[in-house]
């Protein structure tokens, strides 16, 4: 039986998957894609999203039975898997945090200081990661409706002015594959889910996982379509796409045009998304150190220092994200889930799915496996 801090319901994992998938694909990535693939950027997005969905299906195949932490597989193999997830998550956190900090600095603060934003941001991420998977999932569940309403308003009040012809001719050429190759790091962010276990809910849930995954796919590709039709080739110079495309309640502030509902909803999404990959680091390090608090503080300090001194601006972040290290990260993200799946299928014949209808909360609490909840 896994610790209940890492047990989540299918609807929670659906919302988490949506946020994890979409958040960083609508900010800087459209600009990067437009710069590399031009008008075929939509195809690059669709191609990599398809692979990401496939990756998620494999991961879900593992976690609906057991989490990597609780799986009965050889310790050495498990240790290697966890180390790889920690390394990949750490790299992604550094790259994507830089993007989030840049977004906040540009849209909310008038040249706000990069390091101060890191100082405000990192404790929040580390705290959620420290609290564990089900706190992360519950937070996602709470903020999701703010995000959904904000996005809905954007759709309802859209005054779209673009040229659909900007998408033509749609050709799957070498540029598409080049764009996919260069921007691997922005895809396949589900490996921290391997530390979670999906519980069988006591009653049927409204949010369906397959529907949410389909919505994620449509949202990412649809956003790229809107971006390309609005900006055409000029998209290669348009950063913070999500803020530019947003239309609801757009007002001109003293520091620039800002769409507050969109900015705030994206900030919530970014906190959840980054907390998820920081959780990947914290949970993995905890496996080795055994002391969760120490692991969280160490991870937070290391990430903050890396962002403080290693990543001074977005150019450095992009350079690192598109360096050859991306192949290692890509290999971890896409090859590790099938390996874990095979390992669990081969070695672990004891694990049974977590059934919330058959759990004795009192007993779990006595055993220290349930730290939260009122029973």
């Amino acid at each position, binding site marked *: 039986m896994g610790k209940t801090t890492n047990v989540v319901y299918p609807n929670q994992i659906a919302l988490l998957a949506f946020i994890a998938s979409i958040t960083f694909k609508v900010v800087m990535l459209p600009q990067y894609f437009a710069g590399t693939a031009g008008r075929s950027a939509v195809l690059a997005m669709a191609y990599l999203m398809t692979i990401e969905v496939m990756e998620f299906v494999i991961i879900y195949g593992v976690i609906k039975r057991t989490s990597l932490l609780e799986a009965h597989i050889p310790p050495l193999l498990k240790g290697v898997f966890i180390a790889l997830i920690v390394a990949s998550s750490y790299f992604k956190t550094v790259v994507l945090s830089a993007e989030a900090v840049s977004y906040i600095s540009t849209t909310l603060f008038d040249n706000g200081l990069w390091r101060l934003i890191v*100082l405000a941001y990192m*404790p929040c991420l580390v705290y959620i990661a420290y609290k564990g998977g089900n706190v992360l999932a519950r937070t996602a569940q709470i903020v999701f409706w703010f995000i959904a309403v904000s996005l809905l308003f954007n759709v309802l009040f859209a005054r779209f002015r673009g040229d659909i012809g900007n998408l033509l001719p749609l050709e799957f050429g070498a540029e598409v594959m080049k764009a996919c190759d260069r921007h691997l790091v922005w895809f396949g962010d589900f490996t921290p889910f391997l530390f979670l276990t999906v519980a069988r809910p006591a009653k049927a849930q409204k949010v369906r996982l397959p529907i949410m995954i389909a919505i994620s796919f449509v949202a990412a590709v649809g956003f790229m379509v809107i971006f390309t039709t609005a900006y055409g*080739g*000029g998209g290669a110079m348009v950063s913070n796409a999500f803020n530019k495309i947003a239309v609801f309640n757009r007002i001109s502030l003293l*520091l620039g045009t800002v769409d507050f509902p969109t900015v705030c909803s994206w900030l919530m999404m970014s906190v959840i998304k980054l907390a998820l990959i920081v959780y990947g680091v914290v949970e993995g390090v905890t496996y080795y150190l055994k002391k969760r608090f120490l692991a969280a503080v160490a991870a937070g300090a290391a990430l903050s220092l890396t962002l403080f001194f290693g990543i001074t601006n977005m150019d450095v972040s992009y350079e690192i994200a598109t360096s050859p290290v991306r192949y290692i990260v890509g290999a971890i993200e896409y090859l590790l889930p099938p390996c874990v799946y095979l390992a669990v299928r081969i070695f672990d014949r004891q694990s049974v799915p977590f059934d919330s209808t058959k759990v004795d909360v009192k007993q779990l609490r006595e055993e220290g496996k349930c730290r939260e909840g009122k029973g």
Partner: protein
Amino acid sequence: MQRRQRVRRLGGYKWAIILIIAVVLIGFDLLVDNASIVNRGIVVGLAVDSSGDLIELAAQVILPRSGGSASGGNDFMIFTSSGETMQDAVEKLSVSMGVKASLAHCTLVVLGEDLLRSKSDYVLKFLLRSPYFADNTLLVAASGKAKEVLAAKVPINDVASYHMQRMMQGVQREAGVNACVIKDYFANYHYIGGANFMPVAVVENCEYSPVGPDKEGSEGAQLLDLSRTLVLTREGYAFVLDYDASRGLSYVKGNLNDGTIIFVSDCSQERDVVILDSKCRLKVNSENSVTSEIDVKVKRNDLPTAQDGMIVNALSTRERERICESIRGQVLACFEECQKQDIDIFHLGEHIYRKYGEEWRKNQNKLYIRNIDFEVKVDLEVK
């Protein structure tokens, strides 16, 4: 039990962390350059010129009247600065104003002729990348120095930047005024051929003198004419279209709902009709043939009069043909003028590329516009 106590003790850290975050956020707010409205100068129009290696800025700034004024309205002033780069010049603008220059409300940028001939690419890319300028910021080319355009004393409101914004982005979209915003500029820039356009602002003196409070003794007003259009390529300044060609461009590139078409009536008199609506669609016929289909709705400018139940001043078939011919002639004038310079102003290459893809593009060079046959079909509807 011990474990639960330890966990409870650790729970105390939660409040410590919340306290730290709160302190960081408060400190953060104090440390950030968070100038209030009284310490900001709201720029409504910006003129950019070049002088040697320097970039010169002139910003038209609102000076809010304190406590609100009985007469309403605000005062405007022009501040200047110069720098080696745009960023440098913008920062020095704040120094010149004595308050922070706030560019969020600046929806008009006038570019001087010298600058357009030398540094237009750099300046326009700065405008697109800068978080301060909106995508719908209007671009205008000055015939001469940009700051002179911004300083023009227009009859209404005295503020040139507002006046020009109304001419280009108001409810009425007039034939001949080819408005261009930053977003459209860069979309055009990346099309096949990369041709671009923006209105040319010409300041002309007029005999009219502004009247009203504070206007007595003021000099005569000036007119701002935007009826000619500058054509640019990716390399920068190309040439200026004349009045007719500018109108031709607006029929193809814009959706119009204002302006007049002058024609010669059957009685050899000059008459005009008012444009109600005009739309254009480019139809690609083959790899080197494109037709422009323009649908124009007009109404007579003179009231219809009846005699024996018949409208006597209705447009005859020949008059309609003359109106169509006038539009066709202006569109073709624009095309031919640009074709002579090897500029694809209507982005015909882009439309052909969308239909035929790479197969078409790989066989083309920069002079592809020479081989394209362009036809104009005008469908006129009189209301």
